Every structure is written in C-alpha cells, then in structure tokens.
C-alpha cells in the first residue's frame, strides 16, 4: 500500500509575522520558512505506517514555486521515499490545491492520503475535505489516532465535545491534529541520503488543472492592538478591580 502526504511550505510558526505597510499582504522576504507543522505530523504518521509494515511507500507532494522542493527534501530526510513537486508561481487556494492533488492521486493510486488539518498561513482548514469530496472518498479530519485495517481504517478525531471514533472505507483522506504523534527530527545521515531521493516535477498544465484563484485579496491589515494593563499586588486588589472597576464578576 502506498501513502501520499501533502506538505506545504509556510512561514515558520515561530516567526513574528508582519503585515506589509502597503497592506498588500504579509512580509515574506528573508523570512524563515518551514514545513507546515500539521504536515510534519502527516509525514511522521506515514513513515510510521511504513515502519509498521502496513505501507510500502511514502510519497510527499508539495505545490508551489521552486523553493517548495526544500520542504519536500525535509519530508524525504524524515523518511519519505520520493517527492512530487507541482511547480507553479500562482496563488494556490484550497480548492485549486485539492484539484491538483486529486490529479496526482489518480496517477499514484495511494490508499491513504494525509494532509494537515490546517495550514498555519491561510488558516483555511479546507483542502483535505475538498480533496476527499472531489475523489468521492471518505474523509477523517482532525485525527489523533489512525488504526489501519483490511480495506478500512478506524480513526479517532478531536472534536469540540471531546473525541469521536469513526470507521472509514479505504481509500481515505485523513487530516492530522496535534496529538496524532510527535514528529521526529531528521538525522544528519538521513539528510544526506535525502539528497539522492527522486523528486518528480509536474505542473498544473501537465495535470490539466486550472488553478486560477477564486478569492481576491483586497488587503491585509494589522489586528487592533490590545493595551497592556496594570499589575496588581494582591489577590484582594484583583478581586476588587474585577468587581468594581471592570465589573465582570
């Protein structure tokens, strides 16, 4: 069985993101980039499936400009077997990403496809569900546990009320949540080995997909700033302020 993981290149979540003065977007020049943290969890899960013998091959796919090959290399260094780069400079929105991934999946025929529940740049949280819809597959979102069986999978999902376990048919699209696993760091020898692993290049045109954006970004502004308040010395003073000044208790 083959597992396909989608990996998105995003601004490193530890970087303080700045809005551009002309309101056209956020500053990306000379900013540290990283694999979307939820996709690291996806790569880790796929590798564990191979290590457990339930999967034979792990393929990492990324959509974007030339630099996303670095993100694919990171996946390969963690242990993925090969990469596919869908090369485009276009602004790829979730519906377009889902269409592009669908085209690759139709060629590759994986049984399990893993995406992040959310990319921490656009915070959209859509691509996995859209991909499952376009393929006509089952979907298992916000996964904190995946148990693969014969032609089916049991997936535990993090939902607002707690946890829910569902049974899905294979093939399935899974999206990862934070508690699914703790991703490994790539070791130096594995980083070296990854340099020799193949990355196949393709494009939206090759895949027959029109990735044109449907949403226009009008502007991006900074959120309203909150003023820091005061420090109080005692609990009695705090309770007094909450009762008589803020009037919230």
């Amino acid at each position, binding site marked *: 069985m083959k597992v396909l993981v989608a990996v998105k290149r995003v601004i490193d*979540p530890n970087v*303080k*993101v*700045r809005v551009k003065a002309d309101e056209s977007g*956020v500053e990306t020049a000379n900013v540290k980039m990283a694999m979307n943290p*939820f996709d690291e969890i996806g790569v880790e899960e796929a590798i564990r499936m191979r290590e457990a013998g339930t999967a034979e091959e792990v393929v990492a796919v990324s959509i974007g400009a030339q630099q996303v090959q670095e993100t694919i290399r990171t996946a390969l260094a963690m242990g993925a077997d090969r990469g596919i780069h869908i090369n485009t400079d276009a602004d790829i929105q*979730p*519906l377009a990403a*889902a269409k592009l991934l669908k085209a690759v999946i139709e060629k590759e025929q994986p049984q399990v496809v893993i995406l992040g*529940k*959310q990319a*921490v740049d656009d*915070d*959209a*949280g*859509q*691509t996995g*569900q*859209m*991909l*499952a*819809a*376009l393929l006509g597959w*089952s*979907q298992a*979102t*916000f996964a*904190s546990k995946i148990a693969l069986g014969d032609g089916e999978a049991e997936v535990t999902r993090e*939902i*607002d*009320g*707690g*946890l*829910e376990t569902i049974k899905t*048919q294979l093939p399935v699209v899974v999206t990862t*949540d*934070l*508690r699914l696993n703790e991703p490994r760091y790539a070791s130096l020898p594995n980083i070296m080995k990854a340099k020799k692993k193949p990355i196949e290049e393709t494009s939206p045109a090759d895949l027959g997909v029109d990735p044109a*954006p*449907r*949403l*226009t*970004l*009008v502007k*991006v*502004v*900074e*959120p309203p700033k*909150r003023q*820091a*308040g005061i*420090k*109080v010395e005692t*609990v009695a003073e*705090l*309770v007094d302020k*909450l009762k008589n000044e*803020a009037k*919230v*208790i």
Partner: protein
Amino acid sequence: MSILVLAEHDNAELKPATLNTVTAAKAIGGDIHLLVVGEGCGGVADAAAKVDGVAKVLVADAPEYGHQIAENAANLIVSLADGYSHILAPHSTSGKNIMPRAAALLDLQQVSDITAVIAEDTFERPIYAGNGIATVKSGDAKKILTVRTTAFEPASGEGGSAATEQVASTGDAGLTSFLRAEVSSSERPELISAKIIVSGGRGMQSGENFAMLERVADKLGAAVGASRAAVDAGFVPNDYQVGQTGKIVAPDLYIAVGLSGAIQHLAGMKDSKVIVAINKDEEAPIFQVADYGIVGDLFDVIPALEAELSK
C-alpha cells in the same frame, strides 16, 4: 437572496453558535433559512423556529444524519444549494468538517472563519494566527462561509415563528460510520459560550492541579480551558485547548494561569473583554495583553483567589 445556515446542535439542543451565525447571515441580508440535519432532532427544529430573523426551518431527520457524518451532510447541502446565494455554518469542528466538502462538490472556494461582512461578496478573516486581518472578495456565484462565532453577537433565540419544512434525505453515502464518542461531560458551561473562563498552562504541572482551577471556576460559574502544552502533557482533554488550532473564545473575563501567552494561544483568546494573567515570570508575553496581572507563584495565588472569592 436567500441564505442557508447550518444549525449547530447535538440532536437534543440547539447550540448558541447557531445564533451568532444567524447574525452573520443578517449582516449579509436576505431571507434566512436554518437547516437542521440530525436524527430525532424535533426539539432542535422547534428551537430553531423561534430564532429571531429566521424565515424558515428545514429539517432533515434520518439515521444517516445522527452523527453529522460529513459525507452525508455535505450531499444534503449540495441537494439544497440551488435556492441559496450564501450557505453558512459556524467554524466549529462540525462546520469545518462538512462545509469544505460541500463547497468542493459545488466547485466553490469557501471563505473560512469570517469575522466581518463588508459586502455580500466581501469578508474579513484572520490569517497567520490573527497576525493579519485579510479582506477577501469572492468571485464565485455562491458563497460558502464558516463564521467565527465570537465576532458576531448572538441573535435572540426567542420571538421568531418560522415555518418548518421536512426535507428528503440524500441517503447514506456508505463511506464512513460512527463507532463511538468520548464526550467530556461537565456541569460547567461550554468553553465557547462561557462568560468567564479560567485557563491553565504548562505551569499547572499536572492534571491533579487543575482541580484548583476548577474550584475557582465553580465559584465564578466559569468554564475551564487550557493551552496546547497542558493538553499535550495530558493534564486535560483535547477539547480544553484554546488557540489558533483549538477553540476561539471571547468571554467577558479570561483568567490565564501559568501559561506564557504564545501567539498561537493569544489567537484564541485575545478578543476577551477583560484578561487576567497570573504568572511567575514578569516578562511572560501574556502580560502584554492582560488588563490585570499578578506576578507570582500560581500555587500561592490560586488558593488565595479561591479564598477571596469565598468571602
């Protein structure tokens, strides 16, 4: 223009998130229809009919809708989509699961987690953990939106008298079935609708220590939340997590205890009216957003707070 709003419920109760989503629909303007998808959800439909501003309630009551399985619910939404210019749901785990699937089947690019309606086709939404507020304009014929409920006041749950109409099920897609749920049961209010929240972080050191926060919460009629670090460490269940990738809350009062205030946490609570921070590190970023801060050891401050509230 007619707008369809997917109701949030658990087959027994209409959840408050529905009311905020109705307000977002009102801001767009048009006839608002509430869709109740469930099993044995007659009581929810009755409550939905009373929501102020709702013109009609559509009810799809069938076994395949009992657990909000996305494949089934999305197919139903697609079957109803023709009559509507906008389809909205709360940005809850249920809305997030179902709506993008329906959007893709309709070849529409959803706009997630909207915080303001600028025009019928233009919306504001936070990006990068709320570090930017984007204004986006949709060129699609129909708009599929999920709504950040804390950004819209709740519509009144009383005063409406909408007609109720049963709609036909689109059947079981046969792809996914529900096995079991482990639902955190608590007498305390739900996090996303609580007026007061007491939240703990890694500084709590253990799950047992959260009992201290629970006692304070009970004195205040508050819900208990947590940082990701506290959830990852197993102190509390996943559904306590507040933040960019957890729950978004905006209570009247948020008391942050032993949590540093990472950007991902702030993304989930910085719209709270009043923020209190209790942390032993006076440099902790949480103090930059707190209205009132106490620099001190939580193991001294929390028992003292409980005692003070008992007076």
